[in-house]
């Protein structure tokens, strides 16, 4: 199982902030988005993190990973 997190406008777009997904073979971060949200194209500029570190969308995802998607950050 992998654990999905969505933040800010992305969370609002999807209507939920967390999800779980069973993966059976190595997948990339982008694959994970498409599997979890087959009807929603990944918005441009979306950032991704695996286990709380920034990663590119091509980054591999393994079982038990926490995968997060969010828009550009605007803190400070």
């Amino acid at each position, binding site marked *: 199982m992998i654990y999905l997190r969505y*933040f*800010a406008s992305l969370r609002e777009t999807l209507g939920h902030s967390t999800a779980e997904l069973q993966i059976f073979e190595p997948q990339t971060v982008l694959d994970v988005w498409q599997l979890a949200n087959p009807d929603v194209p990944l918005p441009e500029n979306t950032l991704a993190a695996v286990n709380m570190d920034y990663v590119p969308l091509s980054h591999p995802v393994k079982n038990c990973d926490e995968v997060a998607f969010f828009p550009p950050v605007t*803190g400070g």
Partner: protein
Amino acid sequence: MNVRICDSLFDPFEQIQLFQHQLALQGKFGATSIFIGTMRDFNEGDDVQAMTLEHYEGMTQKQLCKIIEAAKAQWQILDCLIVHRVGGILPNEPIVLVCVWSAHRAEAFEACRYLMEELKANAPFWKLEKLATSEKRWVSKNH
């Protein structure tokens, strides 16, 4: 702890003083550089009534600690403190505090600026503005 996430109003000067009192650096620091970000009542030409700061609990702390490590590798700083507000916030309230202590001023100035720029670029916070018109919008440009 060099990183604090606050879900209610904080007093940046009190935070600095409390932290400074714990430092075993009396007489060692000649320079303190501080940045305080405060909520304005305007943004992108619109009046702003209130704001909600969302963040990615855990990743925020992890990224801020990484930024601090990078600053310590680059400048000879004695210590530093980052405080960031989350949750509901009103104009004129502090959003962020960055404070750096060092022996000499160049390091303090440069590391403080670096920490602030890196925080804005990489720490997972998002601002949701409530305009005077009651319209809500996600801030997209992080000047």
